[in-house]
């Protein structure tokens, strides 16, 4: 049983502010980034313990936040493998039909979830993402990609608001709510130690939901829509758009493709037939 975990920072217990990586070079900021990395890594380790206890034999972790290496390798549970770094070859590398479940740790709510702590979707400028008219945040977006491979989303650790969002999208998935957002920059949090207990227990329990939670599916063609808070697109540039991409209005653009994988390859410019060495070598 192989579980794929996507991690983020904003839904980790004990963190209520944005990653300080753009706030200039101070000793306090650097120490805080290190601490955030530890808080995240220990939540991931707790999830991994739960998944292994629940029957997982392999746990692949996607270090998904920001610059792609937020987790602290010195603390990794020896059983996990972590995908990290920049200039990634595709979206959620390693998430494919060989996985049995998708999970997320450090999950935050989607943009415009008013009380969601550090709520956003990808960048702070985005108002909404949708797939065939279904509004999604980052984790929903990933759950639909997993669904393309027939993989169910079974476990969400993070803000209460993110848990609700994912339980609505993927009924039957287990949530581990480690904090509840009270505004964008405030939250009531569990102590990290307690958060890790909840995550371990929830992750273990969620293994029973494999086969129960239905993988998300989308009809073909898949239409992805991105709406921005500010007017950034020029409708007069419509002719210059690559095939499959269209500008709807000054805040909205769409990408259309036969399926979500093809849509993501198109949107991000990934090579559609790229395959990691572990698949090539079997």
């Amino acid at each position, binding site marked *: 049983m192989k579980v794929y975990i996507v991690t983020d920072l904003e839904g980790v217990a004990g963190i209520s502010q944005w990653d300080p*990586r753009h706030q200039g*070079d*101070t*000793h306090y*900021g*650097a120490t805080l*980034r*290190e601490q955030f990395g530890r808080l995240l890594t220990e939540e991931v380790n707790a999830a991994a313990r739960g998944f292994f206890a629940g029957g997982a034999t392999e746990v*692949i972790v996607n270090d998904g936040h920001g610059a*792609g*290496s937020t987790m*602290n*390798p*010195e603390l*990794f*549970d*020896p*059983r*996990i*493998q*972590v*995908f*990290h*770094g*920049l*200039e*990634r*070859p595709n979206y959620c*590398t*390693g998430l494919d039909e060989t996985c049995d479940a998708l999970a997320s740790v450090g999950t935050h709510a989607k943009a415009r979830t008013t009380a969601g702590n550090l709520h956003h979707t990808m960048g702070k400028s985005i108002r909404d993402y949708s797939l065939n008219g279904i509004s999604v945040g980052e984790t929903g977006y990933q759950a639909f990609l997993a669904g393309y491979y027939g993989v169910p989303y079974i476990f969400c650790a993070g803000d209460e608001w993110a848990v609700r969002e994912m339980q609505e999208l993927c009924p039957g998935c287990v949530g581990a709510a480690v904090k509840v957002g009270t505004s964008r920059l405030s939250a009531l949090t569990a102590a990290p130690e307690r958060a890790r207990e909840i995550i371990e227990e929830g992750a273990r329990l969620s293994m029973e939901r494999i086969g129960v939670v239905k993988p998300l599916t989308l009809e073909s063609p898949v239409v992805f829509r991105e709406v921005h808070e500010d007017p950034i697109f020029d409708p007069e540039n419509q002719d210059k758009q690559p095939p499959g991409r269209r500008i709807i209005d000054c805040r909205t653009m769409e990408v259309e493709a036969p399926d979500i994988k093809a849509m993501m390859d198109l949107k991000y410019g990934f090579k559609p037939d790229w395959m*990691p*060495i*572990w698949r090539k070598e079997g």
Partner: protein
Amino acid sequence: MRFYVMTDIEGVAGVCGWEDRKDESIYNSMRRQRIGRLLTGEVNAAVDGLSAAGFDDIIVNDGHGAGSTINYEQADPRAVYFHGLDRPFWLPFLDETCTATGAVGAHARASTPDANLSHTMSGAIRRWTFNGIEVGETGLQALIAGYYGVPFVFAAGDVHLCREMEALCPGCVTVAVKQGTSLLSALTLAPERARQLIREGAERAAEAVDRVEPLTLESPVLFRDERKEPTWDEEDPGEATRVINAHVREIEGEDLMDVLLKVYPKYERDLKPEQWRPGVRG
């Protein structure tokens, strides 16, 4: 029984980006300290495995970048360490007195698709061959060892480097601690797991000493040095150099050492360093 270990940083588990020695931010200095610890953990694992296999004289070359990346506060007391700048040769002390050689933290040669942090010496080089044999840094180490009749028996690093060395030195033991997915991303083992495998692999490398042939070259040796950018000037080729085109030059010599001394005139031929070991005198 003497073993020579070359080390580098780019093939260490948990490292997926370039070390930036110019970024003087506090956060970067913390990251640099961390990658030093990650490297040292892997070197110690190799020293432990080699010692268990009966190697009682282990020389470690702190080979990355500024030549002092290993954290000596953590270093295993059973090895001696060559470190620092202004080196008399790239791999001093690797000579006919060694039983075998290997590499820890090794990365694939330049231009290897999907390999994490692949390069050869510097970012400028596209491809190096000696008598048509394509090598990266670790391949060159195997050639230098071969010049002295010493087999290359052990490599730990990116899976792409492992495949490279298995092809160059059939029978050598390799430990893939990560799988490169692009230049700046990889799926890594947890450092603790990587160390367990390195320890195991290094111990098994002793068995490879008798089966691996030293990598040797016929005389004369033709070195082909291909650069990514136009670099060489046909009108001013420099000493001992034949300019093939703006990207490619060739240097020929009697043997490998003759060629290397033409490439790096500051090095001394067949350096015979004192066989010093620490100890109480008198």
